[in-house]
């Protein structure tokens, strides 16, 4: 399902003296079935942007179109249910949303809300729990007895259980160990292979390079760039400084090599690319 933002403006407290503009004239589209990463420094409006995708926030001006659903300032609260069924959002530290007596019950919450009966909801919950890798032995336990990493998985299953066509992840890797991060990226790719549109916010450029088809860069409430990772991360170094963005680790290392006098054809984005570039360069001499 494609997501399109058309001239979206958003401000908190619109119409009052305390109005505070967050998004300015955002026009961007996130293609169906692809992984779109949203990057930008803290306070650039990333979270505000994604909260428009399922109508938690409504644009003050402009419109957001998700598949055939149009969200504007006038969209009624009742219609949003339909949108939220299509779009699942996993928030930062989603383990804070757990509430039920058992893991299974918690994950069944979303499908039940969206009208599934008990049997269907349980089946959906089981599928989701398997997908995120929560062992069956834990399903009847209280979610509060689990470890932090397991709680995170259960919470993610809680969003995936309603089988949304669009999955939005707001810094899902924050606070995970390297193994957990790798598994998370695997999950993103798996969701993509299931045909889902994935939008994810990240500060971690290596994660972006690993899974994203498109990168949207936000700065001061505006979309300042949208490119494939390969094109974006080959921009001028000064631009990254201005946007307060990092390069992927391999790119940072390559910059050091360049500064030390080594010539590389283009900026490598992954360790493999870096190794190849160095080998080619060293082989030349």
């Amino acid at each position, binding site marked *: 399902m494609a997501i399109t933002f058309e001239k979206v403006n958003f401000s908190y407290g619109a119409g009052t003296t305390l109005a505070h503009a967050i998004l300015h004239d955002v026009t961007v589209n996130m293609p169906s079935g692809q992984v779109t990463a949203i990057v930008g420094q803290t306070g650039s409006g990333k979270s505000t942007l994604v909260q428009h995708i399922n109508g938690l926030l409504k644009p003050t001006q402009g419109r957001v179109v998700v598949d055939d659903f149009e969200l504007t300032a006038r969209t009624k609260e009742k219609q949003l*249910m339909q949108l939220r069924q299509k779009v699942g959002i996993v*928030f930062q530290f989603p383990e804070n949303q757990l509430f039920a007596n058992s893991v299974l019950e918690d994950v069944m919450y979303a499908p039940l809300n969206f009208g599934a009966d008990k049997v269907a909801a349980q089946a959906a919950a089981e599928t989701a729990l398997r997908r995120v890798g929560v062992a069956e032995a834990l399903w009847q336990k209280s979610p509060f007895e689990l470890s932090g990493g397991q709680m995170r998985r259960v919470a993610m299953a809680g969003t995936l259980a*309603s089988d949304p066509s669009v999955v939005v992840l707001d810094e899902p890797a924050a606070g995970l160990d390297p193994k957990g991060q790798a598994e998370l990226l695997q999950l993103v790719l798996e969701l993509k292979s299931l045909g889902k549109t994935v939008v994810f916010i990240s500060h971690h450029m290596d994660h972006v390079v690993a899974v994203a088809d498109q990168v949207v860069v936000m700065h001061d409430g505006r979309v300042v760039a949208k490119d494939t990772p390969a094109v974006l991360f080959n921009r001028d170094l000064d631009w990254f400084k201005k946007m307060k963005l990092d390069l992927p680790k391999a790119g940072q290392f390559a910059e050091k090599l360049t500064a030390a006098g080594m010539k590389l054809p283009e900026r490598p984005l992954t360790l493999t690319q870096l190794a190849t570039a160095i080998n080619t360069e060293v082989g030349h001499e």
Partner: protein
Amino acid sequence: MNNIMIGRFVPGDSFIHRLDPRTKMIGTFLYILVMLWANSWASYAWTAIFVLGLIRLTGQPFKLYWDGLKPIFWLILFTVVLQLAFTPGTPVLYRLGPVVITTPGLINAIYVMIRFVLIILMSTILTLTTPPTSIANALEMLLGPLKKIKVPVAELALMLSIALRFVPLLMDETQKIMNAQKSRGMGFSTGGPVKRAKAIIPLLIPLFVGALQRALDLANAMEVRGFRDAVQRTKYRVLHYEKNDGLAFAGLFVFVVVFVVTKRLF
């Protein structure tokens, strides 16, 4: 969530802002105490004029105070209806089964409403112009004498300032959890009261769990920094009365005198 006004502090540099928090606190309590003695239109009018004058002095738009009143609108309405419906007396204005509306009932209802509104306005003046920490500080100093009879005043003040500090945090947390559950399809609860109460469980449980977790974290953080209770502490900000406070007390005195006059004469 951002529009909840109870206890919100709005910085400023008005006469009221600059008063010592103790002055404001004593003034608020005195005012409320005196106001409860009002029994005539004239005395209510005077107490209302006094509060409106103070609001002018704070230099804040009246809308802020109005927003402070809104959350308790239903409470006011409820009390007013109770007064209206269940005050006996004559003459009877209207009768519907057991419900009898009488003239004294009507007057009582209006008095109660005025009292409610004035008390809220007055306490909003206090909280709107005084940072929460100053309120806690003032309370500690005002209750200081109670230490002699072993009341843990310092601890109570600390509890108060921690509680006040947690209000915006918990608001924030509530908003986040609400967003998460809305995304999972938490909708408008329809149905009976039991069903509705059940519908907010997904909101309350995470909120309680989060609050307890925060409290434990804070307790640990305080402990590793060597916090102990029941020790004499010095203050970073020492409160002292200034000339303006003298003026304020004089103003309060005038208020009380005029109040007594209105009560006696009208």
